[in-house]
C-alpha cells in the first residue's frame, strides 16, 4: 500500500515537472530526424526500408544513447530529491521501510523512463508514416519490429541504466550523480567495450547500449534482405549481453538497498569515508568540533576590531577575482568524483588503449608521436569516437560550475559581493580551461608513457604540445564556452544539460538538421592533418581562420552570458533582459561590437574563400549535379569514342607555391569499327583545364562549365584505326581554401596526385549517382552497381583510357619527382647563380600500358636502387627503385627481399615480369597500406613504420602485403563486371599465399592463413552472390583466395598454377579480350578431374557451406600393434542463395580426416587423408600405427564451415 502510494506520488510529481516532457519531445524529434535522414544508414552498409527491423533497432540504439545522456535527472531526482531539498529528516522518520521507500522511488523512475523511451518508437513511427517519404522506402508495417527493438534494446538498457543512475544519485545524495552514472555507462560502451575489449570478443558482451551488437555486428553481418526482414532475436551473444546487463542492474539495486540507510546525511560523510581510501594523506574529515567560546555568557564590551585595509576595485581587481574564481572552480572539480574520473581514470586507461592500438593487422607499429596522438585526440564532433565522453563531461562540469554557489546555497552571499559579472563567468570558464589543460597534459603523459613502454623515445614534445594544446584544446575550449553560456542563459540545471547536449548533437550531426557549411556549425572547421613528410602542410591555415571566426562568436556568446548572468533572485527572463540593458556598459558594448565585427570580417573572408574563390556545394547540390550530368549526357554513353594509345605529359611542380602546371598530348585512336564524328571531353572540377586543341579541324559544339563536359565535332570523321591528337593544359593552384579545407595533393614536401586532374575522353559513368534512393529522387532509372557478369557488351568495354605514358616532370631542386615508367634521364635547369630557380627534371616512360591510375610524386626522396636478375636463363633484369622518406629506412631490406622473392616465384610460375623497371614510392600519409599499379608500388608512410621483431614465430604481415601487391603485376586486364574484384584481389592473394609458402615455409604460411581467417573483413555469413559474381571485400579478399588455396590442396598446386598461367598468357596480350571470372573458371575446370568438378562448382558457382561434426571416436589396438580408430560423424552440405535462403544438397565429398598423437606437432599428423563423406550419420574406420589421441575433420579448414570447433574430439580407448 505504502509502496504503491510512493510510486504514485513520485510518478505524478515528476510528470508534472517540465523536463520529462522535454525529454519526450527531444527524443521524438531526434528519432524522427534520424529515421528520415539517411545519414546514419549511409554510414552503415547498404539500403534498407525505413521501417526495417534493423533500421528500427538501430534508431532505438541511438535513441537509447540520447536518452542516457538526457534523462539522467529522472532517476537522479527520484533518488536524491529528499536529500537535496533537505526534506529527508521528515521522510526518513516515517514508518516506511527501506524497501518500500527505495523500491517505490526506483519503480516510479523506471516506469517514467520506460514511458519516455516509448518516444523513440513513436519518433520512428512518425518518421516512417508522416507524409514526405518515398513510398518505395517503406516496407510492410510490422508491430513486432517495434516491440522487439523496444523490449530487447530499450528496456534492458533502461533497467540497467536506471539502477546505475539511481545508485550513484542515492549514494551521493545529489541528483547530478545520475549523470555521472550515465557517463560510466557511455564510457563502458564507447571506451572500454569498443576499444579495449573488442578484439577479445568481450566488447559486444560488455556493451551496455547496443552500439556494438546492433550498429557494428548486425550491420556488418546481416544481408540487406536479413536487415529488412529479420527481427532482432534474443539469442547468442545478444541474449548473454542483455542478461548480463539486467543482472548488473539487479546487482546495482541490491547494492543500493544494502548501502542505503535512513540516516542523517552529514555533508558528504559516506563519500569522505570512501575518499579516504584514495587520499589517506588528507586525514579524516571528521565533524568540526564546536569550539567553546573562551568566555561564556554575554560580554557587552568585546571590541570590534577589524583592521581597515585598503580595498581596490576596478579592472585589476576584476582580473584578480577572475583568477580566484578560476582556481576555486578548478579545485571544486578536481576534488569531485567526476574530476577524479577525468583526471586519473581516463588518462590511466588511455595507456592501455594506446598500447592496444599500436598495431595493425596483428603486427606492431612503431609508436610514433603522431600515431599516439591520433589515438588520444578526436574532433569534438566525432560522436562515435571514444573521446565523446569529454564533451559530455564538459557539459556536466559547466552545469556544476554555473550552479556551484546556488547549490551550496551561497548564491546570495556571492552575488552581493562587488565585482563585475564577467569576472565570475570568465573565472568559471578559466577553471574549466585549466581542468582541460591538466587533462591534456596528463594525456600527453599517458601517451609518452605508452611510448616508453614500447621502447620508443623520440617523443616530439613540440608536436604533442602543438596538437594537444593548439588544436585539441581549442576545440574543447570553444565547446566549453558554449556549454557555460547555455547553462547561464537557460538558468535551469536539467534543461541546461538538455540544451547543451542537444547543442552537441547538433554539432555532431548537423547534416541531420540540414546544416552542412562549417560557417553554420558552432566550432566547426576543416580538419587538420599531419604526416611525417608533409607536416601540417597547408591544413592549418583554413583551420585557424575558422577557429578565429568561432572564437569571435564565442566572445559574443560570452558577452551574452555576462549580460544574462543571473545574480540574485531575479530569474524571470523579462527582468534579466532589463538588467542586461543596464549591464550593457560602454566596455561591454565595445566588446560585443568588436566580436560582431570580427565575426563579420572573418566570416566574410572565409565565405569569400569557400564560396566565391572556390565552389561550394551542399551534399544535395552535388547529387543534383551528378543527376543533371547523367540526365543531360548519358545519351552519349554509347557514342563510340577514340581510345588513348599514348600520352605525353610535361608537368611542372612548384611545391612551395603548391602549384602544378601540366601540358599534355593525348594520342587517340579509333578502335571501334565505325566512324567517330564527335569527341566528348570530361574536364575536372577544381582545376583549370585550358587550351584544348585537336590536330585536325573541329567545331566546338558545347562547353558546359557547370557539369564539366565539352563536345567537339570533327569536320572529317575519324575512320576506324585512324588517330588524332588532343593537346591540353591543366593548371592547379590554390585559390584560398575550400569549405572542407585545402587540397593537400600539392605540398611543400610530399606532393602526390594522379591523372584524375587530366581531361578524360567520353561520358564518365563513374560520375553517376549510385545510391538507389538518390537515383529515384532525381528521376533516374535504377542502375546496378556494376554490370552483370553475363553482360557481353560490358565485358567488351575497354573504356577510353590506358596506353603508354611518357612524362617529363620538373620540381624544386631539392626534390625528386616520380612518374610511372622507367627513368630515362634527369637534368637540372636554371641559373647556377643569380636570380631564378634551379629546377630538377625527370623523364619517365612506360613500357606498355601504364594502367588506369597514374601516380605522380615529388618529395625530398632518397632513392634506393637495386637490380633483380631473373634466376632462369632468360637474363631478364629489373631495375628496382625505392623512393623513400630519408628518415624511413628500417623497412627497406624487408621490402626488397619480398619484392625479389615475389619476382622469383611469380616469374617461374605465372610468366615473366612484363617490365624492365619497378618503382616503389612512399607517399605522404599515416596509413599502413600499399597499392599497386603497373610497374609501380606506392605505400603510405605508416607502411615504413611496422615494428617487426624478427623472431622465429612472429608473423611478417608487411612482406605478405608486398607479395600481394607484387602479384598485381600479374593481374590480367579484366572486365569491369561482377567478379572483377575476385579477378584482381583474390588471385593476388592466392599468389601471395603461395609465395609466402614457398619462400618463408609452412609455418609462416599457417600464420598468414590464420591471420586471414581471424581477421575476416566480415565474418563468414551465409549470404550473397556466389564467388564468380563476388564484389565485396569478404568475397575478394577472403573467400576467393581460400577457394583457390583449397583447390590447390585438392588438385595440386601445379594444376592450379598452370591454369592461372594459362589465364595470364591468354589475356595479357595487348588486344586480347578482357578477362572475367568465367575465364578463370574455364581454366580451372580444364585442369580439374571429373571426381572433383563438384568441388569447383561448390566453391565458385554456388554458395556452399559444409557442416561437419564428430560424434565420437574410439580406438583399439589390433593384433599387429597398430590402432584401429572408429569414427562416428555426421555431415551436411547446404547451399545458400543470394537472399540467404538455405537448401540442403546431397553430399558425397572428399573431406580430410586428421588423426594426431598427444603432444606431437600438428604439422606431422599420424594420419591425414581425404575420405568420401556423405550426408547424414556414418562411421569410418581408420588404422594408424601409433596410439591416436585426437581426431579432427577437415583439420586445415579447406572447406567452408562456420562452426569448426565440433570437428575435433579426443579419441576414447
Amino acid at each position, binding site marked *: 500500500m505504502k509502496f504503491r502510494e510512493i510510486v504514485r506520488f513520485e510518478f505524478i510529481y515528476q510528470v508534472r515537472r517540465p523536463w520529462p516532457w522535454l525529454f519526450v519531445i527531444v527524443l521524438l524529434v531526434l528519432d524522427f530526424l534520424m529515421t528520415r535522414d539517411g545519414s546514419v544508414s549511409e554510414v552503415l552498409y547498404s539500403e534498407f526500408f525505413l521501417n526495417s527491423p534493423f533500421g528500427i533497432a538501430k534508431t532505438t540504439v541511438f535513441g537509447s544513447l540520447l536518452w542516457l545522456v538526457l534523462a539522467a535527472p529522472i532517476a537522479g531526482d527520484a533518488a536524491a530529491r529528499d536529500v537535496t531539498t533537505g526534506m529527508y529528516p521528515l521522510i526518513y522518520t516515517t514508518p516506511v521501510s527501506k524497501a518500500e521507500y527505495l523500491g517505490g522511488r526506483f519503480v516510479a523512475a523506471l516506469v517514467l523512463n520506460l514511458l519516455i523511451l516509448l518516444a523513440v518508437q513513436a519518433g520512428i513511427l512518425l518518421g516512417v508514416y508522416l507524409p514526405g517519404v518515398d513510398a518505395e522506402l517503406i516496407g510492410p508495417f510490422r508491430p513486432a519490429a517495434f516491440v522487439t527493438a523496444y523490449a530487447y534494446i530499450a528496456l534492458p538498457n533502461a533497467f540497467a541504466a536506471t539502477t546505475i543512475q539511481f545508485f550513484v544519485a542515492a549514494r551521493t545524495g545529489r541528483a547530478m550523480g545520475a549523470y555521472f552514472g550515465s557517463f560510466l555507462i557511455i564510457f563502458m560502451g564507447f571506451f572500454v567495450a569498443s576499444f579495449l575489449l573488442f578484439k577479445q570478443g568481450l566488447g559486444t558482451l560488455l556493451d551496455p547500449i547496443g552500439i556494438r551488437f546492433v550498429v557494428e555486428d548486425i550491420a556488418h553481418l546481416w544481408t540487406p534482405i536479413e536487415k529488412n526482414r529479420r527481427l532482432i532475436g534474443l539469442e547468442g551473444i545478444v541474449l548473454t549481453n542483455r542478461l548480463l546487463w539486467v543482472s548488473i542492474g539487479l546487482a546495482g539495486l541490491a547494492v543500493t538497498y544494502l548501502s542505503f540507510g535512513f540516516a542523517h546525511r*552529514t*555533508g*558528504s560523510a559516506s563519500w569522505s569515508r570512501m575518499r579516504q581510501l584514495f587520499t589517506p594523506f588528507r586525514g579524516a*574529515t*571528521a*565533524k*568540526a*568540533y*564546536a*569550539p567553546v*567560546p*573562551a568566555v*561564556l*555568557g*554575554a*560580554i*557587552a*564590551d*568585546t*571590541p*570590534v*576590531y*577589524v*583592521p*581597515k*585595509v*585598503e*580595498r*581596490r*576595485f576596478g579592472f*585589476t*581587481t576584476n582580473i*584578480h*577575482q577572475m583568477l*580566484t574564481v578560476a582556481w*576555486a572552480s578548478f579545485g*571544486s572539480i578536481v*576534488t569531485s568524483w567526476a574530476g577524479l574520473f577525468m583526471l586519473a581514470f581516463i588518462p590511466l586507461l588511455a595507456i592501455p588503449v594506446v598500447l592496444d592500438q599500436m598495431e595493425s593487422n596483428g603486427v606492431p607499429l612503431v609508436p610514433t608521436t603522431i600515431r599516439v596522438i591520433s589515438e588520444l585526440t578526436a574532433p569534438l564532433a566525432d560522436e562515435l569516437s571514444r573521446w565523446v565522453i569529454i564533451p559530455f563531461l564538459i557539459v556536466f562540469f559547466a552545469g556544476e560550475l554555473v550552479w*556551484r554557489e546556488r547549490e*551550496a*546555497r*551561497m548564491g*546570495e*552571499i*556571492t*552575488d*552581493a*559581493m*562587488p*565585482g*563585475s559579472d564577467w569576472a565570475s563567468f570568465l573565472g568559471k570558464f578559466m577553471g574549466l580551461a585549466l581542468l582541460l589543460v591538466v587533462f591534456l597534459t596528463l594525456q600527453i603523459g599517458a601517451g609518452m608513457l605508452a611510448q616508453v613502454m614500447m621502447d620508443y623515445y623520440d617523443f616530439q614534445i613540440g608536436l604533442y604540445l602543438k596538437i594537444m594544446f593548439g588544436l585539441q584544446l581549442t576545440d574543447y575550449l570553444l565547446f566549453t564556452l558554449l556549454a557555460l553560456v547555455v547553462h547561464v542563459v537557460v538558468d535551469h540545471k536539467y534543461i541546461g544539460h538538455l540544451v547543451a547536449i542537444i547543442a552537441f548533437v547538433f554539432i555532431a550531426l548537423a547534416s541531420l538538421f540540414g546544416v552542412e557549411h562549417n560557417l553554420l556549425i558552432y566550432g566547426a572547421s576543416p580538419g587538420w592533418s599531419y604526416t611525417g613528410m608533409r607536416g601540417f602542410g597547408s591544413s592549418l591555415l583554413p583551420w585557424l581562420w575558422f577557429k578565429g571566426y568561432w572564437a569571435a562568436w564565442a566572445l559574443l556568446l560570452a558577452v551574452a552570458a555576462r549580460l544574462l548572468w543571473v*545574480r*540574485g*533572485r*531575479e530569474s524571470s527572463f523579462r*527582468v534579466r533582459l*532589463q*538588467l542586461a540593458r*543596464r549591464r550593457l556598459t560602454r566596455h561591454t558594448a565595445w566588446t560585443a561590437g568588436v566580436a560582431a565585427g570580427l565575426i563579420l570580417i572573418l566570416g566574410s573572408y572565409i565565405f569569400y574563400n569557400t564560396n566565391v574563390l572556390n565552389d561550394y556545394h551542399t551534399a544535395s547540390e552535388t547529387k543534383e549535379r551528378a543527376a543533371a550530368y547523367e540526365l543531360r549526357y548519358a545519351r552519349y554513353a554509347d557514342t563510340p569514342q577514340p581510345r588513348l594509345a599514348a600520352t605525353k605529359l610535361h608537368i611542372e611542380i612548384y611545391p612551395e607555391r603548391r602549384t602544378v602546371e601540366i601540358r599534355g598530348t593525348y594520342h587517340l585512336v579509333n578502335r571501334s569499327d565505325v566512324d567517330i564524328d564527335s569527341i566528348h571531353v570530361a574536364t575536372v572540377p577544381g582545376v583549370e583545364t585550358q587550351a584544348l586543341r585537336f590536330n585536325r579541324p573541329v567545331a566546338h559544339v558545347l562547353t558546359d562549365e557547370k557539369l564539366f563536359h565539352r563536345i567537339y565535332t570533327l569536320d572529317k570523321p575519324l575512320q576506324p584505326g585512324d588517330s588524332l591528337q588532343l593537346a591540353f593544359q591543366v593548371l592547379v593552384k590554390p585559390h584560398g581554401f575550400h569549405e572542407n579545407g585545402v587540397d593537400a595533393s600539392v605540398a611543400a614536401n610530399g606532393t602526390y596526385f594522379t591523372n584524375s586532374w587530366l581531361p578524360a575522353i567520353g561520358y564518365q559513368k563513374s560520375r553517376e549517382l549510385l545510391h538507389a534512393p538518390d537515383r529515384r529522387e532525381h528521376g533516374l532509372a535504377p542502375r546496378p552497381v556494376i554490370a552483370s557478369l553475363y553482360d557481353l557488351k560490358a565485358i567488351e568495354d575497354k573504356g577510353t583510357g590506358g596506353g603508354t605514358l611518357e612524362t617529363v616532370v620538373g620540381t624544386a631542386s631539392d626534390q625528386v619527382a616520380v612518374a610511372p615508367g622507367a627513368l630515362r634521364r634527369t637534368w637540372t635547369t636554371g641559373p647556377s647563380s643569380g636570380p631564378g630557380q634551379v629546377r630538377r627534371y625527370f623523364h619517365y616512360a612506360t613500357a606498355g600500358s601504364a594502367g588506369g591510375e597514374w601516380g605522380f610524386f615529388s618529395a625530398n626522396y632518397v632513392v634506393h636502387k637495386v637490380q633483380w636478375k631473373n634466376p632462369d636463363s632468360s637474363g631478364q633484369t629489373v631495375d628496382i627503385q625505392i623512393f623513400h622518406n630519408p628518415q624511413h629506412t628500417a623497412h627497406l631490406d624487408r621490402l626488397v627481399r619480398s619484392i625479389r622473392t615475389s619476382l622469383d616465384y611469380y616469374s617461374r610460375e605465372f610468366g615473366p615480369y612484363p617490365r624492365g623497371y619497378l618503382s616503389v614510392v612512399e607517399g605522404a600519409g599515416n596509413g599502413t597500406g600499399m597499392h599497386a599499379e603497373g610497374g609501380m608500388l606506392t605505400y603510405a608512410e605508416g607502411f615504413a613504420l611496422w615494428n617487426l621483431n624478427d623472431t622465429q614465430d612472429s608473423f611478417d604481415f608487411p612482406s605478405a602485403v608486398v607479395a600481394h601487391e607484387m602479384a598485381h603485376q600479374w593481374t590480367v586486364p579484366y572486365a569491369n563486371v561482377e567478379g572483377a574484384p575476385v579477378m584482381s584481389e583474390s588471385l593476388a592473394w592466392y599468389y601471395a599465399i603461395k609465395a609466402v609458402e614457398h619462400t618463408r615455409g609452412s609455418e609462416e604460411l599457417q600464420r598468414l592463413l590464420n591471420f586471414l581467417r581471424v581477421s575476416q573483413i566480415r565474418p563468414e555469413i551465409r549470404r550473397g552472390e556466389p564467388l564468380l559474381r563476388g564484389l565485396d571485400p569478404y568475397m575478394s579478399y577472403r573467400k576467393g583466395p581460400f577457394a583457390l588455396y583449397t583447390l590447390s590442396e585438392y588438385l595440386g598446386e601445379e594444376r592450379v598454377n598452370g591454369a592461372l598461367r594459362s589465364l595470364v598468357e591468354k589475356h595479357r596480350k595487348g588486344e586480347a579480350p578482357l578477362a572475367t571470372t568465367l575465364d578463370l573458371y574455364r581454366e580451372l575446370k580444364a585442369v580439374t578431374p571429373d571426381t572433383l568438378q563438384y568441388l569447383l562448382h561448390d566453391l565458385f558457382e554456388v554458395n556452399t557451406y559444409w557442416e561437419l561434426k564428430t560424434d565420437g571416436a574410439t580406438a583399439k589396438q589390433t593384433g599387429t600393434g597398430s590402432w584401429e580408430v572408429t569414427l562416428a560423424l555426421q555431415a551436411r552440405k547446404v547451399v545458400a542463395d543470394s537472399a540467404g535462403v538455405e537448401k540442403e544438397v546431397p553430399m558425397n565429398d572428399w573431406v580430410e580426416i586428421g588423426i594426431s598423437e598427444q603432444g606431437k606437432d600438428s604439422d606431422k599428423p599420424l594420419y591425414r587423408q581425404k575420405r568420401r563423406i556423405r550426408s547424414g550419420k556414418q562411421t569410418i574406420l581408420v588404422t594408424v600405427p601409433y596410439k591416436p589421441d585426437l581426431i579432427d575433420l577437415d583439420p586445415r579448414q579447406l572447406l567452408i564451415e562456420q562452426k569448426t570447433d565440433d570437428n575435433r574430439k579426443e579419441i576414447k580407448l
Partner: protein
Amino acid sequence: MTLEISNISKSYSNGRSTEVVQALKNVSLSIPNGMYGLLGPNGAGKSTLMRILATLQEPDEGSIRLGDPSAGPVIDVLKQKDEVRQTLGYLPQEFGVYPKARAEDLLDYFAILKGITQRKARKEVVEALLRQTNLWDVRRQRLGGFSGGMRQRFGVAVALLGNPKLMIVDEPTAGLDPAERVRFLNLLSELGENSVVILSTHIVEDVSELCTRMAIINKGEILLEAEPLKAIDGLQSHIWRRIVEKSALSQLEREYRIISTKLLSGRTVVHIYSEEDPGNGFEPVAPDLEDVYFSTMAGHIGTHKPVVAL
C-alpha cells in the same frame, strides 16, 4: 550615511496561477547610521526588502539611495549595484557553505571578491574576523562539519569583510545560542556607529535591545516607523493585562481587543489595547516593545499615523 527608500513596490506572480502576490507596497523608509530593526512576522516582506537592498532583487517601482548628500555622491542602489556591493555587508536569512572548503580558505576567497587584493592585508583581515567570530580555532576545518551557529558566525565574518557601510542582516539570530546571539548583536551595534545596519527579525528582543530605530512591516506594508523607546512611551497606559483560565479566553476575545496571549504556568496572560480602563479585572501594565509590535499588528497604532513625534 543615510539610506533613503522611497515608494518601493514589488509583486510576484504566484507559481502557475495568475494571482499576484504583493510582497511590498509602496514602502518608504529613511534609515540613518546605526542599528535599524525591521520587525515583522514571517512572510511580511522583510526578506524581499532586504534582498532588494542587497542588490539581489529588482523592485517594480521606487528608488533607493544610499549616502549623505552633504558628504559626497549618493549611490542609486537600484542602478549602481556594483558601487553598493563595494560597501555592502550582507548576511542572508538562509545560506549554505561549500562543505569541502576550509573556513580560512573560503573567507580568504571572499576577501578577494570584496576587493582586498593584497595578500598581507587579506591575511590580517581574515585572521581578525575569524578571531572576532570565534572561529580561529577551527579555521583549518571543513565547513561541512560546522554546526548551525558556527556557520552563522562564518556568514557574519563574510559580511563584515571590507568594513561595510551598509550592513544587511536578515534574521541573523535564529540559529545562535544565547551567548553567540549577544556577541553577535554587540558586534553589529558597534558596526552601527559608522554604518547603516539593517536587521530584520521577527524576534522583538533583537530590536528592543539594540536598535535605535525600527519599522514594523506586515503584508508588504510599513505599519510603523519609530524609535523603539518612544514607541513604548506612546503606549503608556494603553496596555492592560489580565490572567485568566484558558476556558475564559474565548469570551474575552469577543469583548476586548486582545493583542496578545501568553501561557504562564498553565494560565493565560492576556494583553489588551485600550485607551481607557477596561475594568473587569484588567490591570495596567508597563508596555514593552512586544506590546508595540502586537498593537501595531492588530492595527491599534501605526499605519501612516506616527504615534510619536519624529
